[in-house]
Structure formats: C-alpha cells, structure tokens
C-alpha cells in the first residue's frame, strides 16, 4: 500500500468512527468515502442429486445479502434454472458491491418451487475502488 493511500485510509477511518453512530443507527445513506464498485463474483456449488432439480422446472436460486444471516424472503437472488443436459447449471456470476457479501444457495424443482433449505452461508469481499 502506498504511503499516500495509507494516509487516506487512516483519515477516512477516523472520520468514519465519528459518523458510525449516525450512519448505522439512523440508517443514513450516502456516507461518502472510497467509491464502491461492483465486481463480478463467480458462485459455484455441487450439483444436487434430485432428478427434479436437474430437469425442466428445476434449478437453483442464489441469494445474496449484506448481512450475515440475511432473510431469504426479502433478499435479492439470481435464478439459475435448468436449461439442458444432465444437470442444472452449478455456477453463476453475480455483480456484487464493495464490502462483504453473504451468499446462500437454494435448490428447487417443479415439484417443490419453494425449494430446499438454504445451503450454508458463505462470504465474499469485494474491494473498494482506488482513491480518487
């Protein structure tokens, strides 16, 4: 890390501590700071063995959230439906924003549109943009 950038991070960290209470508790937006970016994230998983997951009407939903233990009911997700071949796809790309992102995968079938219990949650950290 360059000397300039280190100073920058330290300066902003200090400011952040001042602003934490308002930003977090008050739910404020527009904190400012280093620009958030969106980055491609490749999510992969092991193929489920249910026949119905791996045929028309089956597939996976990849949910993502910004807090650990996020609620699936209100979370964003990418649908990864069965397309063709022996199995439904077992990977997909997400565009996720800087910071920690939490990901859970649910398998579903035409028989069970609500799907399985979610997979274990994993975390991926997207870096922030370089200093302006």
């Amino acid at each position, binding site marked *: 890390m360059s000397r300039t950038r*280190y100073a920058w991070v*330290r300066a902003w960290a*200090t400011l*952040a*501590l001042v602003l*934490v209470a308002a*930003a*977090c508790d008050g*739910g404020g*937006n*527009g904190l400012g*700071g280093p620009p*958030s*970016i*969106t*980055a*491609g*994230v*490749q*999510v*992969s*998983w*092991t193929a*489920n*063995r*249910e*026949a*119905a997951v791996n045929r028309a*009407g089956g597939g996976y939903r990849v949910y993502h*959230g*910004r*807090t650990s233990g996020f609620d699936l*009911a209100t979370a*964003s997700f*990418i*649908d*990864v*439906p069965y397309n063709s071949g022996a199995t439904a796809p077992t990977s997909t790309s*997400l565009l996720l*924003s*800087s*910071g*920690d*992102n939490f*990901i859970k*995968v*649910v*398998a*579903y079938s*035409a*028989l*069970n549109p609500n799907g*399985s*219990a*979610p*997979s*274990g949650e994993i*975390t*991926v950290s*997207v870096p922030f943009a370089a200093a302006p």
Partner: protein
Amino acid sequence: MIASKRAVGFLACFGAAASIGYSSLTAGQAMPRQMVKARSVGSYVGDEVLVKFKSALTSQARINAVSGFGDRALHTNVGTRGLTLVKLPRGRSVEDAMNAYRAMTDVESVQPNYIYKKLLAPNDPSYAQLWGLHNTGQAVVGGDFPTSRVPAADIGAEQAWDMNGGDCGSAIVAVLDTGVNHTHADLAANMWDGSSAGFPNHGANFITGEVANDPMPADADGHGTHVAATIGAVGNNSVGTTGVCWKVQLMALRALTSSGGTTASVVAGLSFAVSHGAKVVNMSFGGAAFDPAFQSEIVNARDNGVVVVAAAGNDGTDNDDPATPQYPCDFSQDNVICVAALDQAYGLTAFSNFGAINVDVGAPGANVLSAWPGVTITDDFSTWTRSGAWSATSCGSGAPPVLVNPSNWCTVGSTYANGANDVAYRDFDLSGIAGSLNAVATFSTFHEIAAGDLYGFARRAGGGNPFSGGQTVFQVSGANALDVSENISACIGATCSLGFRLTSGGAGVDGGIAVGFFGINTTQPGSNVYQVLNGTSMATPHVSGVAAMIWAYNPNYTYADVVNSVKFGGDFIAALQGNTVSGRAVDAAGSLRFVNPPVGVTAVLSGP
C-alpha cells in the same frame, strides 16, 4: 495497528450503507432478467401465459398487443374474466413475457397457465380399504384395532403416484422376514428375478435345517407376505390391494419362522440382500439384545449404500430406555430408519414403541389390510376328541379359547392329576387345500410339568389318536412357553390328526398345560387371500415402499439422501412430537418433493 482496526470498523459500517445504496443503484440499471424477487415457480405450461387485458380492449386490440411482442393469441376470451391465452415463441420465457405484459397499461394481470392433473387412484378392488394410502375416514372391514378416523391422515400416496405412477421398479427391496408367497396373485409380477444369480424362486431361505434355495422360500407364516404386499402389491391390476409401490422388485428372504429368527439367519439374510443388489431392506422384527454380529452386518449394508427400515416394536415402551431397547431399531448407524405405528387418526397406537433418540418416523400400522399366503384354518377346540382331564374352555369373558389340562387350569394353583394318560386331538380334513405349497400348524402353549411326567404333541396321517401310530413332534417336561409351528405339508389334500397328551406318574404334580391360538396356515399357489393386521411390522413396509419410490425417482441419490427425504419430507404430527427423532409421519409425496440443501458453495471474484 490502531489505524487498521479503525479501517475495519469503517468498512463494516460502510458495507451496511452500501447495501442501501445498492438497491437504488440497481433499480436504475438494466437488471439481469432472472433477478425477480418473490417469484413463485409452479408447474405450468412452459410457452404460454394468461393475460387479463382491460375489458375496454377489443379482441383485435388484444391480438395486436400480443403480436406486438412477437407472441400469438390462442384465445382472447377464456373464462368469465375474458382472459387471453398467449403462446410464446421459442426462446421467450414465461418470466420475460409476464414482465413485458405486466408493464403494459392495458393489462390488469398476467399469470402462468398452470397445469392440473387428475389424482391417480388404482383400480384394485380392495383399494378403498387401504386407509394408510388414502384415508377417507373409512372403516376397515375386519379391522379390530379401535381408532377414530380422520380423512387425509395418510402417506399421501395418490399425490405421489400422480408424480411417478407408483413406479419403484428400478429399486430392489428385500423383505427379511418369514418369506413371501411369491406366487400370490398380487405379488408374482413384482418379485425380484434372481434367476441369473441362481435364485429362481425370487429369494433365499436362511432357516437352519431348511433347503437354502428351497422351492418355497415362501412364507409358512403369513407375516412376510403381508409386509411384502404393503410395499409392493401390484397396483392397478384389478386384483386385491395395491402397495405403496405399484411396481417394484421384491426379494423374498426367509430368515424367520413363526417363532422368530436368530442372529445366524438374520445376518445371513441381510448379507445376501446387500450382495444381491437390494437398495432397501425391510426388517419388521426386533429383539432386546444388542447383537454385535447383527450390527456389523448393518454397517456393511451402510458401507454398500443400503437403507434398512426397522420396526420400533409392539411393547408400548420407550426404545431409548436402557431397560427396554429394541434392535435393529436402536442401532445408531445412519442408514437405519426406525418406524412407529400410527392409527387411523394419526395418533400413536398404544402398542407402538417410541423414542425421541431411536425412533425416526411414524407410519400407518393399525388395521392394515394386505396379502396373505393362503387360507387359514382356525380352531377353537370345540370339536376335539378328549380323554381324561382335557377341557376346552376360556379363562374369562372375552379371553381366547384354550385347551387345558387340568380342566380348572384357569384357576391359579390348580394342578393335574397323578396317573394321567390323557389325549386330546382333532382330525383335520385338508382335502380343501389340495394343491397348497405348504401347510403349517401353529399354536401357543404354556406348560408346567413335573419331572418324570410328560407333555407331548403328535400328528398322524389319516386321522385318529396321533399317539397311536403317529409321529411325536415333541415330548417335554419342566416349565416353558412356546410358539410352535409344525410343518404338516404331508397332510395336504388328505386327513391328518393333531393332538396333545399328558402322561403323569404316581408322584409329583404341577400346573399343567394350556394351548391357544391353534390354527393351520397354508401357502397356496396364486393365493388371492388378504388379512388385516396391526403392528409396527405393518408400519415399517409403508416406509420401505416410500424409500424405494424415492430411490427410483432419484437414481443418483445416496442412502443418506434417501434417509433425509424419508425423515424430513413427512408431515409434522402432534402424536410424534417428542416421541420420535423427526416428529413426522412419512409422506410419499412430501418425500418426492423434498430437496436437499445445496452443498459445496464457493464464491470467487471474477473481475470488475
């Protein structure tokens, strides 16, 4: 160091703020088409949607609107609300179309064209009696277990058959039991074909002293045939009942007689099942001893990916209590599913064992109608020829008929007489069962005989006093309780006498003899006989059938996947809460719908 800690705190908070910004950011951008929240995925026609245009729109305007998307209107006035049925071109998804129509100001609503199917019921004449498969609140003819009746308290078989037609054909289910009458009219077509392996009679016999590949690894008792047909009586064949599986491969393994089996017979049978391709082994039996040899064989089954389904037991006791364990139910291997018995209202039956640690699920186990190997000749001793102190009586109102010596045997403290040579017998005319494959006399007996005195059982071809020119089957003294099964196949088509004798000397007497539940079980070729029974033995095969169905439906499943689907695809039942591991009654449809959570999830940055 401090600075970096502060940086971490900063990033954490910024992450939360960024997620708020994320929504507004993406809202203004072109969303990936799949990113639709709270979408329901049902079973619907893949290239059609139903659009409700505003009523003011003419048919032509509706057609034009549809054509504008490159779609085609099949109907413009479906149902009271005048829905437009839209056919989508190849490559256009239902979701895309729904999003597009939803965005139109002239559209009130849009939905998929969902698919409905008739629920499949088989044409088997006794199907209406099978409450465990389809509970309509029916009373079971011949059912003696008192129960209230609640419609829909069943394993959801019709919904499951609707998904797979009852086809478990790719799964071999071994019935480790008293054998199976594989010629039964409702079983023959569903028996495992072991010809190429050298077992043309659909299984094998593990009872010591009997022929290994007996032409009849068939059922000399009835229990195994009953169990087998609950798993897989041929469905929709206009004969008798139907199994959970309409089509399956049933392997007949004779490891029990009417009085039970041994470590040797059970272990040999299970080993055979595993090495001959069984995926599920039904074990409607149990014992109280922890049996290391049996457990090793269970482990071998697990290591070969075989599911074992075991009865919880019929003592009404807690299998978790160290004083009343039950094996194989209590074996801790995770390929064992242990089953409690439910009544027609999905209450736990009073006889069923239970156990929050060892008993996994519940299933229908009272008033269960299923196949029987042949006619059963029952006897109440009323027509027996008796000499001496033998008496046909009953120890109280409602108690079963018994044959006793002394005549006042029911009175505690009574004893037989010295100097007795008392015989009781009956001639059984078995011409009516000519052509039967097997015939077995069965009874329960309790005796207390002083040293030097004798209690005997004998039979004689042609009839008459069996202790005169007949064959003595046993002659004992001392005290014991016995369940006897005596093969009397030699009597088939003829007359045979069966009888008991008490001989006593001049000194020393004891409590005497009581005999009950006397009957003759036959195994008839092409039997079309059925019987109603109660027990966790009857609950267990419902679960074996479901396990086979799951496996046939999901050929890539592991044994653990099958066990998961059985345990967690069922319905929560109040009576099973705290009494079983899962708290659930097995449900075939729920198990087919069950989807395991994905595993092995990873995520990596793939670029900006």
